[in-house]
């Protein structure tokens, strides 16, 4: 299940629950899988200095980001016994309550998926050049920063 070169991880707009459900469905033919672990990042209505976030506008240095996603994917397959792995990240506007990141790992056994998923999500947060403009309800904005 390894890809030979970076594929495009980005999707325009939010990632729908239907897309996620369908992705789970497609794995039901893979009968060596015993455990799936899924991480979803959802946009929070954070209150900052009295103003409430209403959406995040995502941009990315796309070529480098896809290259980094690819390296993270390769490193995860190297470190963990995974059957498959999928990563999707939004670009453009994602409103509060909507999903902007979907990471899906599957393995014969459960211990592996817990470790692998956390490794992948932390690497995405740290290494991938994606930028988030937090839009407030009054249309002012600030730039999001991963911690």
């Amino acid at each position, binding site marked *: 299940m390894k890809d030979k070169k970076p594929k495009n991880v980005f999707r325009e707009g939010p990632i729908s629950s239907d897309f996620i459900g369908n992705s789970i469905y497609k794995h039901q033919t893979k009968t060596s899988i015993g455990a799936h672990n899924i991480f979803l990042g959802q946009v929070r209505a954070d209150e900052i200095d009295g103003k409430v976030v209403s959406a995040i506008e995502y941009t990315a*240095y796309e*070529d*480098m980001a896809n290259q980094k996603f690819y390296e993270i994917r390769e490193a995860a397959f190297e470190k963990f016994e995974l059957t498959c792995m999928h990563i999707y990240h939004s670009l453009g506007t994602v409103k509060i309550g909507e999903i902007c*990141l979907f990471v899906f790992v599957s393995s014969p056994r459960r211990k592996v998926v817990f470790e692998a998923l956390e490794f992948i999500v932390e690497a995405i*947060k740290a290494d*991938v*050049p*994606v*930028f988030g403009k937090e839009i407030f309800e009054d249309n002012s904005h600030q*730039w999001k920063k991963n911690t």
Partner: protein
Amino acid sequence: MLITIKYFGQIAEVTQKDEEQIEISEGLISELLSTLNTKYSDLKHKDFQIAQNQELVNLETELTGDEIALLPPFAGG
């Protein structure tokens, strides 16, 4: 040599553009940065990393003529 420079997020807000080409003599990343700091005085208040050919580099790295990008803090996920 002619270098393409890309700006992202709050850095693009400072430069007021997403991309430009700059003619610069061979040298280090630090020399390119000096040129940019002169051109965009607000840049020095901003937090960013520099990528050359899609890899993060530091100030002592030699300019190769590949694409340069100024990357503000990452916010994926």
